[in-house]
């Protein structure tokens, strides 16, 4: 079974990549998200801002099916996540690139092996893996480091490898959870530029952050969360 790249028939013309309708999520009795309704269009670059505990990471987890909402509905390209069977979750994740603050690279595997992993689990051919990994590494400017192992790279390079892994199979959207949390302002700027260039190629990007340096560099839509609620949605010009 293949994750549909086009919206389902009921919503054939919807340009929405993500739609959330009255989504709530609780951990035990603590509310992580409350009645969140929002829409993100295909090709948008969205910043999810808010302090720690605002619900940014929970929202991203809901979008990759790592968590299920207690209430409400989430549609990705018109398809409801609540109707996905467990066996379909991996198919969704193959279309969504994820970048995390702590990189989550395999330390004993080379950069090439790390980046090729998403292609390998999909069953891509050797030639396809070589070609796409080379492209992804070129896009992040690290094609010359393909035989290195992550512990030998700088934090900025490790984050770029993480981004290369997230984009290697041409995802429909890229979710980044505090991607610059471990980086200094200069490296933050590099990573944001990288996201911009990926976004320019049509990939929807959602970056969850509480880093004001990121906000300063992005003239895009900003959704602010606080205590699990959407408190503002605005277009920011830096």
């Amino acid at each position, binding site marked *: 079974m293949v994750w549909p790249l086009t919206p389902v028939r009921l919503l054939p013309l919807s340009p929405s990549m993500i739609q959330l309708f009255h989504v709530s999520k609780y951990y035990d009795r603590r509310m992580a998200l409350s009645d969140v309704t929002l829409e993100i269009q295909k090709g948008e670059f969205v910043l999810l801002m808010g302090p720690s505990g605002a619900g940014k990471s929970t929202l991203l987890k809901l979008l990759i099916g790592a968590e299920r909402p207690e209430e409400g509905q989430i549609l990705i390209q018109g398809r409801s996540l609540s109707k996905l069977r467990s066996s379909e979750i991996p198919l969704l994740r193959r279309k969504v690139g994820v970048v995390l603050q702590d990189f989550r690279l395999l330390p004993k595997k080379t950069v090439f092996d790390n980046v090729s*992993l998403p292609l390998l689990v999909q069953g891509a051919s050797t030639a396809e893996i070589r070609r796409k990994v080379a492209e992804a590494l070129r896009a992040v400017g690290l094609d010359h480091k393909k035989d290195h192992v992550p512990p030998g790279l700088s934090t900025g390079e490790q984050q770029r490898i993480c981004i290369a892994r997230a984009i290697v199979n041409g995802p429909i959207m890229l979710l980044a959870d505090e991607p610059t949390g471990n980086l200094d302002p200069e490296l933050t700027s590099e990573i944001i530029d990288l996201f911009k260039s990926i976004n320019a190629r049509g990939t929807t990007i959602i970056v969850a952050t509480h880093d004001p340096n990121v906000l300063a560099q992005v003239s895009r839509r900003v959704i602010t969360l606080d205590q699990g609620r959407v408190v503002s949605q605005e277009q920011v010009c830096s």
Partner: protein
Amino acid sequence: MFVRRLLYLLREAVANVLTNRTTTVVAVATTAFTFACVGVFLLLYVNLRALASSLEQDIEVMVYLQDDLTEQMRREIEQQLKADRAVGSLTFVSKERALADFQTQFPSESHLLQGLGQNPLPASFVITFAVESRSSEAMRRWATRAQSISGVTQVQYNQEWVEALAGMVRYIEVAAIIVGVILSAASVTIIANTIRLALYSRREEIEILGLIGASTTFIRVPYLLEGAALGLLGSALSLAILKAGFELFRHEIRSASRFLGVDTLLTFFPLDMCLVLVGVGLFLGCAGSFLSLLRFGEGRV
């Protein structure tokens, strides 16, 4: 495409084993000794069963006849016995033949019968059983049936010996099953714990694989392969230990002169049974792995 993924999964399974080398060696050794304990019972069972079966082949049943039977009646009894599917072969021993046999076998005692005037030994049929009717239970049932035939005075066979041996084989069989089940569960637990250690040491990698869209099967296969390898190696090693112990035992028996010839009766597991035992080890290894994967969490794996 499939080959590349398979190679990756195999490479991961080997990497799992190498990462936890000490745990793997301990798990294989413990599993081997556990399987070997079950194997000792199985070996005992196989040999006693072979011995019982060889003794059952030699057992003859004597059907003694009344002295005043006419030739016609004797033939009728013979026909009736021959028609029985349990009867493999039948030989008639007349009164005269019985006396002659007695005198041949016990020449020093033959004077005891001379004092009685007439031949006191009855005519009889000597019966051996068909292969499928050689169990003690079948023999007992047949003896009761034969006893009720008109003209038959007594049916005799070495009942106690056959039944004692059959009873012992049954006890060993039950003991082997109980010990087998308990120790198999122990082996599964040992392997499950080894796999659980591997899972915990690689939990971050498992989470990453889940994040990038690896299917549950893709994540689980290396651990199932590792469990299967542990079970297979454990059972193969246990067979090697058993074979060495068996040969040592046979050598000791051979050198002890009072057990002359007993060593030739001893047999090790035939090849097909060895393969079955290795297969059982492999299966138990997979089961141990599977248990650990379930406990580790459906969400993560």
